[in-house]
Structure formats: structure tokens, C-alpha cells
């Protein structure tokens, strides 16, 4: 019961932070709100017995990705002269379309009822996930690792001067 309540609290926090993220003009503020979204999601993960993933979420998303975004924003340090938005009709339509998509998705999700079973206590522990990753999901794991290598090289190459 406490867990359910906490999940809802974290969820509300995540949604609120998400909204703030897209509403703030200053990208650094947005980035911090983004960090808060990720943090609350990590909380939800932890409550759903995905402790390892919650920590990974904090380590990678909050500790690396958010920091990297903040870092690059600060590094580029542009002035905000151009960012005063023109409200175009297209953007108005875009919001409406997003709203329609939301309603459609709600129709799909609302129709679901997931009972769920209680997972074993060791579920979500590092050893368990590691075992699954390195046996059944070894191929995707290797592909992702190669992707990561490519991304590293590509990122360096793109951002390099000259």
C-alpha cells in the first residue's frame, strides 16, 4: 500500500517535472527538471523491484546524461535572443495532434487489465539481470556494445575541431 502510494507520488512528480521541462525557457532549468523526472522514475523502478535498474538509471541518466547535457549547454553558452518562440499555426496543430494521440493511447491502455504475479525475491538483483543479459540476450548486448563504441568514436569525430 505504501509502495503504491509512493509510486503515485513519484509518478506525479515525474509528470510535473516533465511538464516543467518542456515549459521552461532556459535549457539549464529544463535539464534540471529532466534530471528530476529521471530521479522520480528511478524511484518508481526501485519500488517495482528493479533496484539494479534504478541505480543504473541514476548512474547513467542522472549522473552522466543529464550532466553531459548541462555541460554542453553551459559549454555552448549561447545567448537566448533567438529562442523567443514564434507561435505558429503548425505548433498549435501539433499540440492538438498530441492531445488526440494521448486520447487514443488512453483508449488502448485503459482497456488493459494487468493482474501481475509476485516475482521471486531475487528478481531484479544484479546477478539475475546479468545472467539474463549474458545468456539469452547476449546478442543484443553485444550489438549495443558495438553501437556504444561507434557512438563514442562518432561523437568524438563530430565534435572535433576542424
Amino acid at each position, binding site marked *: 500500500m505504501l509502495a503504491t502510494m509512493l509510486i503515485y507520488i513519484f509518478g506525479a512528480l515525474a509528470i510535473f517535472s516533465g511538464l516543467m521541462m518542456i515549459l521552461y525557457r532556459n535549457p539549464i532549468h529544463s535539464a534540471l527538471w529532466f534530471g528530476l523526472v529521471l530521479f522520480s522514475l528511478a524511484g518508481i523502478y526501485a519500488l517495482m523491484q528493479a533496484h539494479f535498474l534504478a541505480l543504473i538509471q541514476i548512474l547513467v541518466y542522472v549522473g552522466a546524461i543529464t550532466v553531459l547535457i548541462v555541460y554542453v549547454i553551459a559549454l555552448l553558452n549561447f545567448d537566448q535572443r533567438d529562442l523567443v518562440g514564434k507561435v505558429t499555426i503548425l505548433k498549435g496543430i*501539433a499540440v492538438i*495532434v498530441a492531445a*488526440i494521440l494521448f486520447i487514443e493511447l488512453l483508449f*488502448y491502455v485503459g482497456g488493459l487489465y494487468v493482474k501481475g504475479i509476485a516475482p521471486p525475491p531475487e528478481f531484479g538483483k544484479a546477478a539475475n539481470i546479468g545472467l539474463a543479459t549474458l545468456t539469452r540476450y547476449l546478442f543484443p548486448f553485444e550489438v549495443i556494445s558495438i553501437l556504444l563504441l561507434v557512438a563514442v568514436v562518432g561523437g568524438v569525430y563530430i565534435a572535433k575541431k576542424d
Partner: protein
Amino acid sequence: MNNIYYLWLIPFFPLVGFIINGLFGKKLPKPVIHWVANVAVWSSFTVAVIAFFDLLKVVPGQRILVDPVYRWIFTGGLAIDIKFLLDPLSAVMILVVTGVGALIHVYSIGYMHDDPSYYRYFAYLNLFIFSMSILVLASNIVLMFVGWEGVGLCSYLLIGFWFEDEEKAYAGRKAFITNRIGDFGFILGILLMLVIFKTLDFVEINKILIYHGETLSVTALTLIAIFLFIGATGKSAQIPLYVWLPDAMAGPTPVSALIHAATMVTAGVYMIGRLNLLYAHAPVAMAIVAAVAGATAFFAATMAITQNDIKKVLAYSTVSQLGYMFMAMGVGAFAAGIFHLMTHAFFKALLFLGSGSVIHAMSGIQDMRQMGGLKKYMPVTYWTFLTATLAISGIPPFAGFFSKDEIIWSSFASSRGGVVLWAIGVITAIITAFYMFRLVYMTFHGENRSPEEVKHHIHESPAVMTIPMVILAILSVIGGWVGVSPVIGKLFGVENSNIFEEFLHPVFAHAHIHFHHYSEATEWWFMAISVGGALLGILIAFYLYIKRTDLPRKIALKVWPLYKLLFNKYYVDEIYYYLFIHPIYLISLLFLWRFTDVYVIDGVGVNGSAKSVRFTSRILKYWQNGDAQVYIFSFVLGVVLVLGYLLLA
């Protein structure tokens, strides 16, 4: 079927040698290069010998050892392993390949001494040994094909070794392309095999043929056999694809000895020996093999008569001798063919090495008309060369006699042979003896006709070249004694004198080729005829080139059209040129270029696609306005519409 876990070392050592020399050779000093290469090959040879003795320990009926190294391709029902197979056949072959290869590596140290691309030469040579041992040890036809292509590549690289010379590079290309034509047939054969047998492993195929051979379609088997034989004609220089081999003499002489005489060109023979059961089940294919082989043996021999280039003579003689081997294969005397393969490897390698020694001494001159009287300058070369010549001519007790005589006898005695084949064999033997002694007399006897600047530094080759020759000479003498036919054996009171055939017997036992039985006297008579023929050839050569040296010219003038025909090798190259190359060239020039390339490829393909893209883009570019958010919007809109449709539907 037992396992033998060190067989992979045989190809491994040369591969290491190749990698070391190939990658770092440029930086290494010469001694290091040839030590690396030689140690690699000698290690292979040592391993081969060890493996051979391990094979001997096994009971004769079960002499199949395998080394499963690695599962290479595994897809659907097809599994292709990198797996090595050692049975008596491949054991003989690997010993010949690594043994002769090792000797020629040693010889090359002396022969290639002043070459600037020393490291490249040894790297290629090691790569060749690697490929060849893969070919020989392969336990399935795909792996064999890997080796097959590998040796082809090495052959190409080594023929065109001095690629700065346009003509030599052209010879390399010619060899390569001719081999490609053959390989095309080979690949078709492999694919057809896969369809028929559902497996490509030799052992499995043999099992299928032994137990279910009768149920398989003879037509299909014949087709497979013929396709594979087409591959063999390419690699082993049989009619009609033999044309590359004489040109292959452009390469360094040790290469000619190793690749184009002793080992690679026998791959086709080996392949047929390996698939003897398949051929035994396809009599038509065997007949074709025998016929083609007979023709090759005869025509190549006639072509050799008129050649003046010392290496060309040997090249045609190689083609002719390969014809003998295929003849043996064609009549079902597989063991005899392999036996001749082995003895031929000894004496033909020796002949090439001897000629290389001569060329070395003559500062690169290959024309026999400029030689003569070299006997007193280079005694070791002369004596070893003479040994080999006697061997190839089939004079007892030299090695060639036993193997050749067995082939000639088998071609008569086999149920699949006949008098015609026998006659061709004997006539070819006469011609062989003739042109070989012509070669010897023109080169070593008579007076020296070489130019002055060459004459005074004719010298015997260094020990590093002569010692391999001496070893090969010894082998050319005694090499045949393992396969003495029973009638001779009885003369000396030896039971089971044909050890060689007995050793190979398990491999060929299931082919069940029937040999007619004749009395011993008949056999003696036939033997006498072939030896007599050889002696006759020698006598003619002696008369024409020692006694009456003016006569050859006169004869040539008298039969000028025939001489010219022979001298120009029956115009085969020209025929090929006008029949195939020129038409293709013309078609390319007139049709493929003027029409296909200009209108179809450029017009429709290149420019047309560009035009259609431009046309489409003119319409589409209004949507493509460079604003990423519009793209995302369209994307989301699409999702919304699809989802909405699914919801409503």
C-alpha cells in the same frame, strides 16, 4: 575413424611463415626470411612424417584419421567443418607436397638469392604450401576448394612474380583466367553434389556411395564427375584448358618445379583419386577422362618435340605426364595414377631444378640452341638431370619405369581401357623418351654454342641448390621400388612387392574396377614393348642430335607443314584467340560498349535514375522543407491516423 589432434599444424606452420614474411619481410634481413620460410616448411614435413607413422600404426582397413578443428559453416541442414582428414591417399600426397616443397624451399635460397623481392617470394611459397596442405588434407570438398583456390592464387602470384615484365604478368593473368573457367565447372560440381548427397564430407559421400550407390541417378553422378573434371582440366592442364601451363614457365624456376610440375597441377588427379567412388559410379565420365587424358598425353608430347625453350619442353612434358596420370584415373587404375603422381613429382621437380640450375649458370638464357656441352661445366646437374631423364623415359630400374609401365599395362588390362589407350600410351612413351633425350643432348652434350660473355662464367650451382637435386635424384631412382609390379617382384622372389598399391588399397577398394587377367608372359611382353619403345626413342634422339646433327633441320624442312604445326603448338592459342577472345572483344567493342554501356547503363541506369530522382524530388521537395519539427509532426500525424483507424475499425 580416430582423431588426430595435431594435423592442423601442417598448414599452420607455413601460414605463420607467410604471415611473418608477408607482414614484416620487407624489414627483415635475407637469412631471417629464408630461415623462417624453411623452418616452417620443414616443420610441416616433420609433422607430416609423424602423422604418417601414426597412420601406419592403425589397422590397414581403418586408416582414416580426422582432426576436427572448427565448425566453419552451420546453416540449415548443412554443416561444413574445417576438418582435416588423413588416410593413405592424403598421407602420400602430403608427404610429397611438404617433402618436395621443403627441398625446393632449400633450393630457392640459392636460386632466388639476388632477387630484390626475396621476402615476397618466400611468403608466396609458404602461402602455397599452406593452401596445398589445406587442399590435400581437406575432409570436405568445400575446404578442398578453399585450398584449390588458394593454390590457384599462389600460382597466379608466382607466375606473375616478376610483374614488371608485361609478358610475365600476362602469363599470370592467363593462368588465372583459364583456371577460373575450370573453377566454374568445379563450383557447379560442388553445388550439384550438395543437391545429390546433401553433404559435402568425403567420408560421408563415400558411405552414401557404398551403401546407396545404386539408387542414385547415374546421370547426376556423371554430371558431377564431368563438372569436377572440368575443374581438374583447368588446374591440371588437360585439354582444352592446358594452355596456361607452358606460359606459366614465366615464373621463377623453383616455382615451376614445385607448383607447375610436382604438386599443384596434380591436384586434379588427387581430386579424382579422392572421389574415386564417384567416378567409378559414372563410367561415361571415366571414359571421358581417359579419352581427354590420352589425347592430352599424346598431343602435349608431340608439341614438346619442337620446342627450343628448355622450360617449355619440360612444361609440355608435364602436361603429357599429367595426361598419363589422368589416363590411369580414367581406366580405374587409381593407385597407379597416384603412384605416377609421386614418382613424377620426384623426377619432374628434379628436371625443373636441373633446368633452373642450367638457367642459373647460363645467366638466364633458356634457349637450348644456345646451350650444349654443359656436361663438363656442371657435372652434378648433368648426372642428376640424366637420372631424372632416364626416370621419365621409363628405363628400369628408375622410378618412372614402374609407375609408367603400370599405367600402360592398366590401360590395356582394365575393363575400362583398351588397345587404343595402350597404343597411345606406348607411342607417347616413345616420343617422351625422344624429346627428353633431345633436351639432354642439346643441353649437355655436343659443343658449347653459348654467347661469349655467358660462356666464361658458366659454373656449377652452389651446394644449397645441388643438395636438393641430389636428394631428388636418389628419390627418382629408388622412389619407384615401393610399387614394383608383382611379375617383377616374383623375379626377385619378393612377395607383395607392390607395397604402394597395397597401402593405398583401402582407399580405392570400393571402386571395384575390373581388370582382365592375363598370363605373366603377356605382361612381360607388354613391359618389353614399352621399355623397347623408350629405348627406341632414346636411340632416335641419339642419332639425330649426336651423330647427325644436320639431320633435324633437313627433316624439319621436309615435313615443314607438320613441323610448323607442332612448333606453333597446333595453333591452339590462336584458335582460342579467334574463337573466344576475339569475338568477346568484338562484342564488347561493338555491342556492349556502344549500345549497352552508353544507352542502357549510362542512359537508363545512371542518368535515367538520376532524372527520375530529380523529377520525383521536384514534387517532393515542398514537403522536405528542412524543418525537423515538421518531419516529426508528419510522423506523429501518421501514427495518430493509423491508431485512429485501428481504433475505429
